[in-house]
């Protein structure tokens, strides 16, 4: 039963919603720039085209690692989305401490990009991968602090199911003061985890060509892009479960959950279009300075009880 669940919810549904999310993101970016954006099926066609292209493995690269890393990232995203869907629909009682598993699984895609960058043997890839590592160190701390808040508020429950049921009884965490602060910090962190403009220092197109992705072509590149698109759906979904009480699909609530998701996606796209790319040291200072500050204040407020 779990396998069916894994395939249907984790893989297919997330991939579909991820590609739709990436289309929305590109369309809004184009509209902000007075342009007419790409057609609806564009992300699908990109993936199919890339799968059809020839895969070139550079001679300087270590072949096995070069091919496997994209699958590593893809697998972790599929598992995360299955866990989230399973908890959200309360189909079965997940194990204790599944939040910690989700946090680790969410870190694996960026680690996969890093390994891919180093494996490609291209100095630009190496520089891109080392930047990705610095960025990871930057946003991981405030991200975990922000996730602590819902855990504390729901009485130190380390299970997603408990957090969801707690929110179902007495209102989403985002309504209280500490919830809002934590949500703000978390949104900024997933902006960096997704590698969108203010923090896309790893694949800074105009500086180090495509960073870790410079040597990828054909199928591995398609898998990497699919992972990125699915992350674009999974991360906001994770935040919605933690702060906004997750999706439920009976009657009017369908509209609410869609609105919640669109809201977070809009915030991410607007941030992406309104400021230039930061340097790696500025980004690190930004994450360890103000964002960690907000997260710590949120945790303190949560402990006090607001």
């Amino acid at each position, binding site marked *: 039963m779990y396998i069916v669940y894994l395939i249907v919810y984790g893989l297919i549904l997330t991939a579909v919603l991820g590609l739709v999310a990436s289309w929305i993101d590109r369309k809004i970016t*184009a509209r902000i*720039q007075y*342009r*007419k*954006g790409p057609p609806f099926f564009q992300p699908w066609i990109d993936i199919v085209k890339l799968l059809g292209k020839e895969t070139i493995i550079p001679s300087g690269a270590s072949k096995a690692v070069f091919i496997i890393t994209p699958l590593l990232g893809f697998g972790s995203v599929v598992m995360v989305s299955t866990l989230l869907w399973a908890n959200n629909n309360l189909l079965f009682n997940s194990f204790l401490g599944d939040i910690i598993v989700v946090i680790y699984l969410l870190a694996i895609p960026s680690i996969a990009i890093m390994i891919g960058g180093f494996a490609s043997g291209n100095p630009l890839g190496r520089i891109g991968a080392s930047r990705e590592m610095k960025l990871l160190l930057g946003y991981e701390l405030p991200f975990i602090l922000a996730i602590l808040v819902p855990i504390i508020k729901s009485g130190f429950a380390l299970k997603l199911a408990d957090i969801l049921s707690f929110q179902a009884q007495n209102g989403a965490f985002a309504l209280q003061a500490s919830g809002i602060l934590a949500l703000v910090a978390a949104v900024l962190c997933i902006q960096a985890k997704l590698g969108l403009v203010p923090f896309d220092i790893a694949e800074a197109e105009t500086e180090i060509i*495509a960073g870790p992705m410079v040597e990828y072509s054909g199928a591995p590149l398609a898998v990497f892009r699919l992972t990125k698109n699915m992350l674009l759906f999974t991360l906001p979904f994770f935040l919605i479960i933690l702060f906004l009480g997750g999706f439920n699909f009976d009657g009017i609530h369908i509209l609410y959950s869609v609105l919640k998701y669109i809201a977070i996606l809009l915030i991410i796209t607007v941030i992406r279009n309104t400021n230039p790319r930061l340097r790696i040291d500025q980004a690190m200072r930004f994450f360890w300075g103000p964002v960690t500050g907000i997260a710590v204040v949120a945790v303190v407020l949560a402990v006090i009880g607001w």
Partner: protein
Amino acid sequence: MSLKLRALLKSPWVFHLSTGSCNNCDIEVLDCLTPRYDIERFGMLLAPSIKHADVLLITGSCNRKSVIRLKRLYEQAPQPCLVVAIGECSMSRGMFIHSYNCPVPLDKIIPVNAYIPGCPPKPEAIIMGAVKLIQKVKGTL
């Protein structure tokens, strides 16, 4: 026509390559991305690295030093890859045919699929060239 080719025609990622051009054509290629002519509605994106490229937009009268790079990059581009020559210089080296540093025209170096005349060709001409290229590959030209 295979699904792979039909997908390629729907989302051709463009890689811009200048071999000694006066960068008028290069600016017109970048103009195609801007709001008035936006080619992203056809699914075309500017590919950052040669490994992501599907269509090679070549401008400039191939001077000796660039030709070495041009051949290498053409080998690196993953097949199936189309080549478009933009502007007079890349079609027949235009005004620089007698230059000591531009010995051989482009189509004697690599096979070219589409030629877009003009010095510089207007963005509308470049988009028309792209449409004709797609029709040619589809066989309906």
